């Protein structure tokens, strides 16, 4: 299960269906529940998770492992490298200002050499219309900006794939994340369910998607719909 070379303790977690999972402490304590048990100090041996099935527990452990790995990757030297790159970029920009000065001088001498103002006006106006290159510059700059967030993006993509499962699995994950108190997993699964609801274009569609049966009488339902009829 674990790939890191962490020399931490290994905990034993027992699922509802009596399967034992060996998990590194650093991974397991992503769960507040387990963290509290560990911090309470007693030497338990096996921690029983009475409401979590092995299938779900396996997935939960995968989630926790991924998040521990992500934090480790981003703590190591990669930040230093980023700073060095950024610093050299700044120095380059400084040098570019020098060439602007030259440009000014050229422009100023040009000005004195040209004949009529009209000609200048034409040149000036046509230069003005060359906004293609400026736009490109802006686009390049924006792309560079976004590239720095690629690690975060990668995690987001991984998370989205992780929660792209059938509803029953989602509910199982939801209940497990709630029981084990794993905030990151809980938030992500909840968001997923909410997104599914949001995509439904009507109350009827929500009912069909989730299998919810209305137990209102027609009059009751009509009353409730009337109450919220001011919503556009």
């Amino acid at each position, binding site marked *: 299960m674990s790939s890191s070379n962490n020399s931490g303790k290994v905990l034993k977690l027992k699922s509802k269906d009596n399967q034992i999972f060996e998990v590194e402490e650093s991974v397991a304590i992503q769960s507040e529940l387990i963290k509290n048990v560990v911090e309470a100090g007693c030497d338990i041996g096996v921690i029983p998770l009475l409401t979590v099935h092995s299938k779900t527990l396996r997935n939960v452990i995968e989630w926790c492992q991924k998040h521990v790995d992500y934090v480790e990757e981003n703590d190591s030297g990669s930040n230093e490298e980023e700073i060095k790159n950024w610093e050299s970029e700044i120095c380059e920009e400084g040098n570019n200002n020098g060439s602007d000065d030259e440009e000014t001088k050229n422009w100023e001498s040009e000005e004195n050499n040209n004949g009529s103002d009209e000609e200048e006006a034409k040149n000036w106006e046509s230069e003005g219309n060359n906004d293609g290159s400026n736009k490109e510059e802006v686009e390049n700059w924006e792309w560079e900006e976004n590239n720095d967030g690629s690690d975060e993006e990668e995690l987001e993509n991984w998370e989205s794939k992780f929660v792209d499962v059938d509803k029953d699995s989602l509910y199982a994950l939801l209940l497990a994340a709630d029981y084990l108190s794993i905030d990151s997993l809980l938030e992500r699964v909840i968001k997923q369910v909410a997104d599914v609801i949001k995509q439904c274009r009507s109350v009827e569609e929500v009912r069909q998607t989730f299998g919810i049966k209305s137990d209102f009488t027609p009059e009751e*339902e009509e009353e409730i719909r009337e109450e919220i009829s001011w919503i556009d």
Partner: protein
Amino acid sequence: MEGERDRISDLPDSLLEHILTFLPTKYAVRTGVLSKRWKDLWVSHPYLSLRDDEIGIQTVKVPKFMNFLNKILLHPQAKVKKIQLSSQERLESPEFIRWFQAVMMKDDLEELDIGFRKIYHTPQSYLTVCNTLVILKLDFGAFSGNKFPKSFCFPNLKTMHLNGFLLAYNFANQLLQCQNLESLIIRNYILDVMSHGLVLNDYDDQNEVLSNLSNAQMDSCYGFHGDVSDRSFLKNMIKAVSKAKDLDLSLSIIEYLYRVFPDDMLRFNNLKHIKLYLQSSHVGALGFILQKAPNLESLHIESDGPYGSVHDALMLEQLRSSCSSANLKVIRMTKFILEDPVLELVQLIFGSAGSLEDIVIELDAQHEMNNFLQCQKLLKLPRLSEDSVLHLKWEFGYSHHYFGHSHSYYHP
């Protein structure tokens, strides 16, 4: 037909409520129709946020909307923390006023952001206290004259934006009780002449200033008569906001300060950025501000109408002197038309502001005076600060069906 089994309704209340918090209000409220299980789960949603196109409150639907609002306020499971309601419609219901006055004092409320085109006139409320409120934004229409409470206390308030209210003369004094205020915007307001009796004279309390204020914007005071109470109001307000780093003050306020209290010891020591509206006859006010704000770095001047023709020579000299001793780094000029008096102003600034780094001038390309010749004159003006960079931008507004096309021409 075999459909989905409804397993979602088996989840505990807390998880369902949590799911609903991820839904925009409109969707969350609708879940009440799903089944009895879901009927009032949405009531515990901490954020009530409904924008223009989500509220359809034509007259016939107002009572239902009010029932909804009351539920948010009074239902046992309700624990709303942030309320954002905005609509271009009018909401002229006395019930709304009662709701509104109650909600401004609600325990645990952190944000109240409400805007309607018009509401029923508010009767004066005397005391409004809320210890938890952090953001208060109210807009019921410019100059609508809705009365803001005569006494209020929001000790944790950080943001107050008011548009269109009738303010009592002691507004500044009350405001000083909100010492955590960081952002203040007061627009389109009128002074309540009936509140004369509440005027407090200038006083030397330590508490005259909002010490945490970061930015403030104040329009001119509509219906200002210049009598003792009016002057007191203005002076107290200016003093209260004098520690801000960023001010956006209407011209008439600055003018007034300049003419009526020129020797006042008032200083804007934290002020780093100010936006002013300027005309040729008011350059004295500009010089005045530069003197009062020794740490000013960024100045944004905007033309608020015809600039005017002739500068007062004495005021120009004073401005030149103020500019020389100021530490202005950035100047931005917007909505000006490059007539000769404007060029004269720019020439003066360029020639005396020695620390300038960035100058940005935005012109309306459609105007005939913003033509090549005038621009050339502008670009050729000598600058005392040789390292300064001048950016000249033209706004091409096409018809109002297209977005304005803004083109930057960088000119070192």
